[in-house]
């Protein structure tokens, strides 16, 4: 897996916000709630989830709407929405990278790839952890799994968290989202320090014919990756307060911005 990074942004007018990255595949998510709800959206027995997804460039299109209904089905079982009836929990998610594969550019590109979707789910989980106002049943961790192109004779090679450069060589990929909570049943794969998990959602698709063993192998691989994401989130609780921010991330961000800018005053002719 690539390097995981979690940064708690501390955006101004929302209750919680976080940036999550698998290497350079990053998303930003913000959460506000429980807040006042419009009477049309009001639900008398639980809080309403309102999710808005924005691509890096272009306006939000059909795939953003589809992704927001996906996130709603992922987070509704992970939160105690019945504790705050007639209120609104508003989530805004944003892709922070658009790449050669066209991901993150909305309907203009080739839609959201599995890694970007996984980073968006993790960013939203981290934003909920940062907000601390909506009670959570557990933390949702997501990873993407890819399947390399192969001939039919051997079982497919699965890779965890494919990089952007590897995406053209994949014959299939998908994002797996797990809920980690102490109330779930333990399985043979769970370890002592990580709570048991259960699969909430997946969109694993391949061009090859459907194979149950491949899907369960992909799921097992994704569960191991999700454990790593959970451990990273647990470590990030230590720097939830902005007074103790992770120094590594700040330094790399400064380096990136300073190398990216060019001084071209000489080139400008008046």
């Amino acid at each position: 897996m690539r390097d995981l990074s979690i940064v708690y942004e501390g955006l101004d007018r929302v209750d919680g916000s976080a940036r999550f990255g698998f290497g350079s595949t990053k998303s930003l998510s913000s959460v506000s709630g429980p807040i006042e709800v419009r009477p049309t959206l009001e639900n008398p027995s639980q809080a309403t989830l309102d999710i808005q997804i924005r691509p890096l460039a272009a306006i939000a299109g059909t795939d953003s709407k589809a992704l927001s209904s996906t996130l709603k089905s992922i987070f509704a079982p992970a939160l105690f929405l019945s504790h705050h009836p007639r209120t609104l929990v508003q989530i805004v998610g944003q892709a922070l990278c658009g790449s050669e594969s066209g991901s993150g550019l909305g309907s203009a590109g080739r839609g959201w790839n599995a890694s970007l979707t996984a980073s968006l789910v993790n960013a939203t989980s981290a934003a909920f952890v940062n907000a601390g106002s909506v009670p959570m049943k557990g933390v949702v961790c997501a990873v993407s799994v890819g399947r390399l192109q192969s001939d039919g004779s051997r079982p497919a090679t699965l890779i965890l968290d494919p990089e952007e450069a590897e995406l053209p060589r994949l014959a299939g990929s998908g994002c797996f989202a797990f809920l980690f909570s102490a109330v779930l049943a333990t399985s043979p794969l769970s370890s002592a320090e990580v709570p048991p998990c259960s699969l909430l959602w997946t969109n694993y698709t391949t061009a090859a014919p459907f194979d149950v063993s491949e899907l369960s192998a992909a799921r097992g691989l994704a569960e191991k990756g999700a454990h790593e994401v959970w451990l990273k989130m647990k470590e990030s609780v230590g720097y939830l307060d902005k007074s103790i921010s992770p120094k590594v991330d700040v330094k790399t961000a400064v380096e990136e911005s300073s190398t990216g800018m060019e001084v071209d005053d000489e080139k400008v002719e008046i």
Partner: protein
Amino acid sequence: MSLVLPGEQVPAQHVNLKLGPGLLHLPLASGQSAAVSTKAGEVKHSANRNKWWIEGNSRRYVPAPQESVIGVVVARSGESWRVDIGSAHTASLDGLAFEGATKRNRPNLKVGSLLYARVSLAHKDMEPELECFDAQTRKAEGFGELKGGFLVQCSLKMCRLLLDPKHFLFPLLGARFPLETAVGINGRVWINCKEPRQTIAVARCIEAVDPDGGGMDEVAIKKFLGTLDV
């Protein structure tokens, strides 16, 4: 310093167990039930281990009974007032919920006035209700309208820190100039000083010490105060 994520089991066991904010007693898949955290933060417990809670920070206030809050009057509905306390629903304050108020002798509040009130009813299905007198003595005890002054917003943990008598900030500021403050547990602090620059200095110090926005300690605040002109 035991930090937990939501959904982790907390070893809270006692005959007379009381679970505070951030903890719920939930049935596990194994058939037993245990205390499980519902928010991220540090697990804390009282000395005799019968009260357990999660100490975390957040910006959004969720009303709970018997908490002192600062509210802003937003509207009048009949005999009662609608007050914004920063929660999802506006709270309602009865016109007679003041010390010594009768039908003929009511306090004269206006839309936009600040109040220091106590949450008397906070239920998830109903809008919160406020009262401006102490529950036991039925006297004002500091509750009521806050005249003049300036309102500052901060995180909920900062308010709890300011309400702690052992915290360093207010004694440090009070030693330099006289000030009057009221701290609401809903993330709002009312400041009243003689000069505007003193009010601005207090507001900036609260923002600087806020764990959500820097979290300066005593030494850094003393240096910071030196740069301000108070």
